[in-house]
């Protein structure tokens, strides 16, 4: 499987794009920011990532400053940059590879060929065009100042890419997959992608004349803002109440208490991260995410979190057999000697088994002390022979 990585750029003509892409990725999951949130210490992470981190230890993963989920704020600008970059990435990389193959001296900007319909853009100075685009997007955002309408409109970015995709011989690269084809064929080709997130170039052309508010507005008018869930104080809740809460939320209520708590916390994180998102998912999708979590992380909690559920931990794939037998060697010894004693005790009258236990304990104690003496240091006081495992 081919996974996009910042290091991809190192092999191209523009290795300096590697740190650019790294900066657009979440430091926790190493993927492109998904619903970036900024902490009160001004670090940015995916909403779900930072919520999981704060649930775990309440600290910013980068600087370890204490923070709370309530203080997280959305970072729309970063979302826009990431969306734009992701759309631009395929054509950017194909361009960078192309240049490498042809060892061309031409710079990408000099290849820009103006589209006939873009008469307003009759300047070759990239800085000027960028500035104008910036102003435009700024204006459109001012006109729809509600919180909802701040969804990123990647139109500008795609235009920039589309402009760069034209080269001298009239062929253009698809802004989504980077495949090169005749300019007229791009529109048809784009329809084959069918990605809801990637706006087709038809939309782009329209939205250039119509204000981009309309595009943003239509997709969002019917969506009511997703609700956020409050956190619970689990220590104040009884098992029954917790299970009831989970079933009210429509999530699985199976497993030991520790798993219920973690599952509820994970569900809150998923739901609240979804509420932050500009592209909220359906509850079914979120439930699927929770199911994935349940089958990976949740399963290990269920087996390790509950001490009584020993069978589960033995059955685990990564079960450490040696450590287990060493850990419980005294128990095993205990059982063995008990079994031997019962053989002996059968002949003699016994009360309720307790004397046998005492004898076994004494035997064990003696054997450990003698082992210590054999291993050396007999002249030192007994306390110093106890190893200080904390010592480092």
């Amino acid at each position, binding site marked *: 499987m081919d996974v996009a990585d910042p290091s991809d750029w190192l092999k191209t003509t523009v290795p300096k794009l590697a740190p650019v892409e790294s900066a657009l990725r979440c430091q*926790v999951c*190493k993927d492109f920011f998904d619903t970036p949130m900024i902490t009160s210490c001004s670090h940015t992470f995916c909403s779900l*990532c930072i919520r999981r981190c704060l649930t775990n230890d309440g600290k910013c993963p*980068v600087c370890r400053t204490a923070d709370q989920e309530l203080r997280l704020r959305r970072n729309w600008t970063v979302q826009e940059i990431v969306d734009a970059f992701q759309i631009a990435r395929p054509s950017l990389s194909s361009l960078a590879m192309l240049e490498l193959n042809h060892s061309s001296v031409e710079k990408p900007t000099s290849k820009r060929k103006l589209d006939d319909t873009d008469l307003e853009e009759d300047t070759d100075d990239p800085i000027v065009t960028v500035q104008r685009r910036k102003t435009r997007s700024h204006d459109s955002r001012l006109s729809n100042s509600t919180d909802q309408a701040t969804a990123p409109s990647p139109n500008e970015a795609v235009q920039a890419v589309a402009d760069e995709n034209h080269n001298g011989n009239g062929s253009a690269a698809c802004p989504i997959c980077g495949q090169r084809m005749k300019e007229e064929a791009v529109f048809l080709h784009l329809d084959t992608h069918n990605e809801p997130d990637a706006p087709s170039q038809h939309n782009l052309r329209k939205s250039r004349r119509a204000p981009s508010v309309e595009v943003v507005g239509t997709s969002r008018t019917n969506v009511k803002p997703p609700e956020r869930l409050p956190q619970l104080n689990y220590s104040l809740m009884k098992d029954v109440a917790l299970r009831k809460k989970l079933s009210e939320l429509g999530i699985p209520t199976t497993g030991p208490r520790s798993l219920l708590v973690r599952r509820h916390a994970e569900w809150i994180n998923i739901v609240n991260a979804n509420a932050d998102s500009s592209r909220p998912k359906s509850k079914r999708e979120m439930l699927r995410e929770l199911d994935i979590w349940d089958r*990976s992380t949740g399963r290990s909690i269920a087996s390790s979190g509950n001490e009584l559920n020993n069978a589960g931990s033995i059955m685990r794939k*990564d079960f450490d057999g040696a450590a287990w037998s060493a850990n419980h060697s005294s128990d095993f010894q205990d059982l063995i000697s008990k079994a031997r004693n019962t053989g002996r005790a059968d002949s003699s009258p016994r009360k309720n088994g307790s004397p046998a236990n005492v004898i076994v304990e004494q035997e064990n104690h003696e054997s450990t002390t003698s082992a210590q003496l054999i291993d050396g240091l007999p002249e030192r006081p007994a306390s110093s*022979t106890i*190893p200080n*495992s904390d010592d480092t």
Partner: protein
Amino acid sequence: MDIRVLDPNPIYLDQTFRLRFRFSNNYPIESPEVTFIPLTSPPRPVPLHPHVYSNGYICLDLLGASGWSPVQNVESVCMSIQSMLTGNVKAERPPGDEDFVRRNTLRPRDVNFVYEDATV
């Protein structure tokens, strides 16, 4: 994962060490379990260091629950271990190494190390 110390530190000159990373399902929220693995061929010793037990366990705050941060990754862990080795001047095992190795039945993550020594 093999690592080398790139500095001309005489303790680790011309040696290569093998590290084992074990990732839980909860990575990167939880730290991976990282230990040195001794091998005979190719020769991969457990480096001599006051914070590395002879069974390969590494006493490094980064690898414990308190020092771990989800922004760490395999690369940063390797670099930390490299710098831990290269900054070392004492070719010795931690105090109580023999006892620890003989008696320890816990996995590295569960051992309660106390990070008191900031000098190495």
